[in-house]
């Protein structure tokens, strides 16, 4: 049994890992995986570098940003790819507030869960596509759970949020989901992925392959037994039961292809977040 | 000698009265069964062995400490805290000065407390400093003064209070003979002019006799006896004079008497 620790954050993207762990699919392949929940995915690169975790689950832009700044990370497996029909994310605006059209965002404050993180990039992209000058929109870092209170108090005018918080905000009447952003973005890009350092990957190619295989098997299992899978997730993500039950589950895909990152590479380059043209091929493990 | 305390001339209007006062400190009896009266304008000197409770007696009079039993009255009202017209020269002069104020500033403190307007203060401070010989050092800080200068500074501040009762705890202890004599005479002058009542602690028996109307001798470890071992009236004419008074036969007699008195043990 090879012991590895995998960092994750509290989102349903990691459901296959929980299933693989609980159903013994890792153990079957000689992997003793310890999932380690972290509050913020921004510490994942440092955690990888220090060896505190061997594999880290984080949003795809983290991989590109780290590589762009000289830290060699490679993606080892995917979680899910974007689907246009998903309504797991959305831009909510203050109910009866000033924002009615994309143009209204100018001069307003928009809460994002992490600056320069995936949802921030997507929001900017979405606004860009609608001809809004994003430099005149203020983005504010606000943790998901606080977005509702901040909207209510008027500290922010809109927020990009995800389930289960999206549902809670809409259902409490504080905000209204005016823009289901997901539908307006191209399908097929990688949402979050599992990554590791290239040094570790080079030495542990076998483990990486087994890890991916186990996830793939877990995805098949989860499709067959959705209730069991949800129960497995409940052990790793602590949420009130009714919230857990209502949590939307994305469509999973453990195989990770460089092409799934092209959208990010283009968007981030466009937003001048990257200094060099990313070499996507080197960022994905074979 | 105790009869003197009962002397009707003094008791008729005692300014201050100790009524069977006792005080414990650190679980030990320091002052015991003290009955004492001070007349208005009287100059009383206190002598006694080191650690016998002289300082403690003075602190009782200021109201800074309260007796364990008995009571102290001033004009028939019980003393329960400091009054602005009771001034005290502390024995540890160095600690009683404000280190961040100059010589003049330290004297000024007393005037500020009494609400003397700023414009009038220099005209009070200057002569006082002159009197104690610090006029040339008005802008120095206490840390730049010698021990005797600090002591004189404290005296100046007390005089600035214009007290009607002046309590002095070895006020001239750190002064040379010359300075001491001139300050003794200054003090006598002041008392004569203002009618201040003075309680004056000293280890110098001659000084006690030279200055006082009466000399109190305290005993250490009073046990069940009274702390007051003796009260010796000084019947020397006033105004006193450094030369003639000190050669006065009564002076010499008292000196001998006191010296013999403190030589014998008073357990």
């Amino acid at each position: 049994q090879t012991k590895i620790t995998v960092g994750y954050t509290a989102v349903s993207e990691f459901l296959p890992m929980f299933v693989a762990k609980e159903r013994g699919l890792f153990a079957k392949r000689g992997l003793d995986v310890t999932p380690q929940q972290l509050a913020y995915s921004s510490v994942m690169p440092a955690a990888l570098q220090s060896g505190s975790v061997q594999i880290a689950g984080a949003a795809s832009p983290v991989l590109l940003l780290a590589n762009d700044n000289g830290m060699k990370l490679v993606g080892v497996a995917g979680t899910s790819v974007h689907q246009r029909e998903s309504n797991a994310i959305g831009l909510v605006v203050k109910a009866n507030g000033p924002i009615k059209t994309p143009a209204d965002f100018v001069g307003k404050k928009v809460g994002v869960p992490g600056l320069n993180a995936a949802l921030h990039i997507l929001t900017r992209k979405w606004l860009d596509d609608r001809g809004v000058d994003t430099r005149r929109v203020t983005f504010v870092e606000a943790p998901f759970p606080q977005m509702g209170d901040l909207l209510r108090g008027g500290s922010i005018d809109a927020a990009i949020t995800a389930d289960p918080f999206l549902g809670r905000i809409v259902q409490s009447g504080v905000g209204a989901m005016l823009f289901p952003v997901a539908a307006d973005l191209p399908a097929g890009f990688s949402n979050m992925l599992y990554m590791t350092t290239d040094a570790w990957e080079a030495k542990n190619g076998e483990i990486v392959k087994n890890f991916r295989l186990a996830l793939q098997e877990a995805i098949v299992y989860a499709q067959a037994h959705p209730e069991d899978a949800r129960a497995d997730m409940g052990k790793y993500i602590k949420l009130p039961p009714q919230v857990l039950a209502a949590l939307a589950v994305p469509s999973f895909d453990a195989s990770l292809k460089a092409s799934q990152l092209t959208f990010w590479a283009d968007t981030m380059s466009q937003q001048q977040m990257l200094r060099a043209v990313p070499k996507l091929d080197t960022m994905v493990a074979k | 000698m105790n009869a003197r305390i009962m002397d009707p001339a003094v008791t008729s209007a005692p300014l201050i009265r100790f009524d069977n006062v006792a005080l414990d400190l650190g679980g030990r009896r320091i002052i015991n069964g003290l009955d004492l009266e001070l007349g208005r304008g009287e100059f009383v000197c206190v002598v006694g062995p080191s650690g016998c409770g002289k300082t403690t007696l003075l602190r009782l009079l200021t109201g800074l400490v309260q007796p364990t039993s008995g009571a102290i009255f001033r004009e028939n009202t019980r003393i329960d805290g400091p009054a602005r017209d009771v001034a005290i020269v502390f024995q540890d002069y160095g600690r009683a000065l404000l280190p961040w104020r100059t010589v003049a500033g330290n004297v000024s403190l007393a005037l500020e407390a009494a609400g003397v307007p700023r414009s009038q203060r220099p005209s009070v401070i200057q002569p006082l400093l002159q009197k104690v010989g610090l006029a040339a050092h008005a802008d120095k800080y206490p840390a730049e003064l010698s021990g005797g200068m600090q002591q004189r500074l404290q005296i100046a501040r007390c005089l600035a209070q214009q007290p009607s009762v002046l309590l002095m705890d070895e006020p001239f202890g750190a002064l040379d003979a010359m300075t001491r004599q001139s300050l003794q005479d200054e003090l006598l002058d002041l008392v004569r002019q203002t009618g201040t009542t003075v309680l004056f602690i000293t280890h110098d028996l001659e000084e006690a006799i030279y200055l006082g109307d009466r000399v109190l001798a305290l005993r250490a470890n009073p046990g069940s006896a009274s702390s007051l071992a003796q009260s010796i009236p000084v019947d020397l004419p006033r105004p006193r004079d450094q030369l003639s008074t000190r050669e006065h036969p009564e002076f010499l007699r008292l000196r001998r008497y006191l010296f013999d008195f403190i030589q014998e043990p008073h357990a």
Partner: protein
Amino acid sequence: MSRALSSWRADRLGGIAVLGALVALWAGVTTAGWVSPVFLPSPSATWTALRTGMQDGALLTATLATIERMLIGWLLASVIGIVVGTAIGVSPALRGWVQPLLEFIRPLPASAVMPVAMALLGLSPGMVLSVIAFGSVWPVMLATVHGLSSVDPRLKEVSRVLGLSRSAFIVKIGWPHTLPDVLTGMRLSLTIALVLAIVGEMLASQEGLGSNILSAARSFRSPEMFAGVVLLGLIGCVSNALLSVAERSLGQRASAR
């Protein structure tokens, strides 16, 4: 006199030498590659980032905004700290009432208080200021309380014997004695205010160095982040130097103890 002066200058040079040694150490660590440049950039990369940032002006604006926030929060904290500290210091009764509450809220981390503060006050600049004041008030307050309690008992007696009122005691004896303590407290408060100003900016996304540092950190742009950190050091250093000047002119008298 001149000897003292030249030794002052020598110390100043020595101080710069010590700082230089630190920078050299920093350079050494990064060239030896002990720490990935993603987390610790080399001094020269930081310098480049600092220069570019300053040239396009954005960094300067952010710095000024942070300084302003720091100063206001710090002044707020100092005034509150001195006033409350004095009240507690001279009144045992008041101490009994409020000190336990203060000691309870003192160890609450800003990051734990912030969500509550945000829920109550929103993301306003006022919220950031109150968090700064909240976090940096303690050194001043504790120092004031301690300073007042350490007044020589003999001086308290002097003030009673002279018949000084309580407020006169505070102004004429309490504060002059406490001044060095309060200045030490204020010096600490200043840096805490600076750190909290940037934390507050990060959490409440007010414009300033904090947002710059955060967004650089989130993009793994360590040179830009450390450019911000260097600026913080500079602000800390300059403000402390100014405080020392004020202290020396104020404490000229007090030092003569």
